[in-house]
C-alpha cells in the first residue's frame, strides 16, 4: 500500500496567534512535493504541526495518515507510523552519542521495544538489551548507510549534533532519516546554510531514499535545491495557506518573478 499524508484545511495557532489559516496538501510515498514560500509564511509551523510539536495548537482541520487522523498521537507515535521530520535547526544533546541515540530510535521505530514488552507481558523473561536492535546488526547497517550517504564514520561516536557545523547537522538528519526508513519525510529547509558540497550530499541522500520509496515534503525558501532534487509537485505557500499548486515548472516561474508576484497575481491579501 502506498502511504499518503493529507493535510486538510489545517488551522494552527501558537498562543493567540493564528499562523496556519487553512492549509491543504497531500504527500504520497515515492513522490517529492516541494513547498516553497517566503520567510515567516508558516512553513516550519506546518512541519512542526505534522510532527506533533506540543506548542502548536491545531484549532481546526485535520492531518491524516493513510486516512486516519494523527492529531491525537504523540510525536513518537507519529514517528512509529513512518513520519519523519528533518529539522531546520537540530538541537545538540551533549553526552549522548549519535550511535546510542540512533540505536534507541531505530529500535523503537522498528518495534523491538514493543515486542520485548509484549513478551514480558505474556510471562516471558525480561532479557537485558532485548528492547534494542542487536548491536552487531545495528552497527553493520549504520556503517553501510554512513558510506552510502557520505557521512563520515566518526559521526557515530560524537555527541548528537554537539559542536556540529551547519552542514554536519543536516548530513546527520539525512543519516537518521536513512536509518529510520520513514514512509513520508518532511524536510524543513534542509538546504539552508549549506555550501554546494554539503547541498549535494543532502540532495543525493533525499534522491536515494525517494528512489527506495520514501515520500518527501521538501520545504524550501529557495529554488536552489530543486536543481538537485526533482519535485513531482510544487506548492506555493503564502501567509499561512497554500495559494497555488502545480508541476515542477512552477518553481522556475517563482524563481524568475519572486514572491512579490504571488501577492499581485494571485490577489492574496496583503498583510
Amino acid at each position, binding site marked *: 500500500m502506498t502511504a499518503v499524508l493529507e493535510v486538510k484545511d489545517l488551522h494552527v495557532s501558537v498562543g493567540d496567534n493564528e499562523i496556519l489559516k487553512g492549509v491543504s496538501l497531500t504527500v504520497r510515498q515515492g513522490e517529492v512535493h516541494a513547498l516553497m514560500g517566503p520567510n515567516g509564511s508558516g512553513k516550519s509551523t506546518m512541519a512542526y504541526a505534522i510532527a506533533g510539536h*506540543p506548542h502548536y495548537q491545531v484549532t481546526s482541520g485535520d492531518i491524516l495518515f493513510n486516512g486516519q487522523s494523527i492529531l491525537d498521537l504523540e510525536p513518537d507515535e507519529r514517528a512509529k507510523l513512518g513520519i519523519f521530520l528533518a529539522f531546520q535547526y537540530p538541537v545538540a544533546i551533549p553526552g549522548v552519542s549519535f550511535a546510542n541515540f540512533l540505536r534507541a530510535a531505530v529500535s523503537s521505530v522498528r518495534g523491538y521495544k514493543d515486542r520485548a514488552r509484549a513478551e514480558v507481558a505474556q510471562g516471558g523473561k525480561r532479557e537485558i538489551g532485548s528492547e534494542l536492535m542487536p548491536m552487531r546488526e545495528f552497527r553493520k547497517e549504520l556503517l553501510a548507510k554512513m558510506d552510502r550517504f557520505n557521512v563520515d564514520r566518526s559521526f557515530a561516536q560524537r555527541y548528537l549534533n554537539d559542536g556540529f557545523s551547519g552542514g554536519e547537522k543536516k548530513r546527520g538528519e539525512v543519516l*537518521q532519516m536513512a536509518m529510520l526508513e520513514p514512509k513520508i519525510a518532511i524536510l524543513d529547509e534542509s538546504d539552508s546554510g549549506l555550501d554546494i558540497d554539503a547541498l549535494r550530499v543532502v540532495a543525493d541522500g533525499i534522491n536515494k531514499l525517494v528512489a527506495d520509496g520514501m515520500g518527501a515534503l521538501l520545504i524550501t525558501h529557495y529554488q536552489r535545491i530543486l536543481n538537485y532534487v526533482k519535485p513531482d509537485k510544487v506548492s506555493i505557500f503564502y501567509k499561512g495557506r497554500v495559494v497555488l499548486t502545480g508541476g515542477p515548472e512552477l518553481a522556475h516561474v517563482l524563481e524568475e518573478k519572486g514572491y512579490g508576484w504571488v501577492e499581485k497575481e494571485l490577489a492574496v491579501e496583503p498583510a
Partner: protein
Amino acid sequence: MTVTTLNTDTISPAAVTAIGERFREPTWLRQAREAAWETFTATPWPTYTEETWRRTRLTGFDLADFTLATEPVPAVSSRRQLPRKMSANLRKMDSGGALVFQDASLIYAELDPELAVRGVIFTDLRTALVEHEELVRTYLGAQVLAADNKFAALHYALWQNGTFLYVPRHVTVEKPFQVLIQLSPGKAAFHHSLIIAEENSELTIAEDYLGAARGMSDTVVELYPLAAARLHYLHLQNLDTTAWNFATMRSSVYRDALYRHLQASWGSRLSKVWIDLNLEEPGSHGELLGLYFPQGRQHIDHHTNQNHKRPRGTSDLLFKGALDDASRSVYQGIIRVWPHAQKTDAYQKNDNLLLSEQARADSIPGLEIQADDVRCTHGATSAKVQDEYVFYLMARGLSRKTAKRMIVSGFFEEVLNRVPVPGVRHKLEAEIARRVGLE
C-alpha cells in the same frame, strides 16, 4: 580486640568516656575525645543567619532521636558468609582489598597478600590504632579539626571505628580498594577514614555508604597524598532517604602530588558536605568531581574549597546535579589563592538540570585571589530540560520517558567519563538509570 559492649547508647559525655574505656584507648586519644566534646558543647547549633547554613536548615533534627552502636557485630571469614546484597555489591568491582563495616564493627576484610608484603596496610582504624599507633597518632585529626564545625567536633568525641589505608613510598596499587559501610536504622554513626599515600605512591579507594534509615551519619575523611603521590578517592553516598548526613572531607596535597575526588551524593534526607582541597606545596594538583540527583524532598548541600597555598598548583572542579520533584540542592564553592601562589590555574563549575517546577538549585561560586599571576575561572548554570530537546528525540520515535532519560544521562556523561574506575562508573550509571525510572 575487646568484645565488651558500650555501657551507654545515648549521645552524651558518658558515651565519650565509655568509648575510651571500652577500647582501652591511649591517653592522648581519650584526651582528644574529651576536648572534642568540650568544643562540641561550646559550639552553638548552626542557624540560618550564618552564610554556611543560610540555605540548609536542620528543622526536625534532634540528637536524642539516635542511639550509638553498642554491640560488636561478629566478623565473617569469607564473602559468601556476608549478606547477599553486600557480596553482590563487592563483586561489582575488581579490587585489591575490601573492608565491610556494619556500623562500628569491621565484619569482613580482605587484602591481596602481595600488597601486604609490599607494606600496604588496609584495615579498620581500631586495628591500626593497636598495631600502628604512631602512624595513626601522626595523621588522625591533623587535617580536619574538631573546631572546624559542630559536626566534626561531635565526630571526634564519638567515633568508634573507620577505614585505615596506608600505601608506602614508591608503591603503585593499580586495583582499587573498596569499603562498604552499612549503617543500621536509627543509629548515629561516626565513621572516620584515614588515607595516606606516601611519597610517589598511587592508590584508588572507593567508599560506599549504605543504610542509616532514620539515623544519622557524621563522617570525617582525611586524605594525605604526599610528595608526587597520586590518590584517587571515590565517595559514594547511598544512604537511605530518611538519613541525616554530615561529612567533612579534606585532602592535603604535597609537592607534585595529585588528588582526585569523586563525590556521588545520592541518598539522605539532608546532606551537609564539606570538601576541602588544600594544595600545600608547589606543583600540586587536585580534581573534584561531584554528582547528585535528589528526588522527593531530599536536600543536598555541598561546600567546596579549592585552597591554593603555593605556586604552580592546578585545581579543576566540576559538580553536576539533576533535581527532581520538590528537591533542593545548594552548592557553595570557593577558590582561594594565597599571596605567593603564583601560576595557579583553577577552575570551578557547577551545572544543574531541573526536572521539575518545584525543584530548586542554589549555586554560589566564589573567588578570593591574592596573587596576580593566576588563571581562575568559575561558573554556574541552572537549566530546565528543554521541551525542544524532548520533542526532537520524540520525533525520532523515543517515548517521552526515554527522551528525558537520555538527556539526563547525557548531562551526567561529562562527569562519568572522568570516573577512573569502571566498576564505579557502572554503579553510578545504574543509579542514574534507576533514578530516571528505567530500572
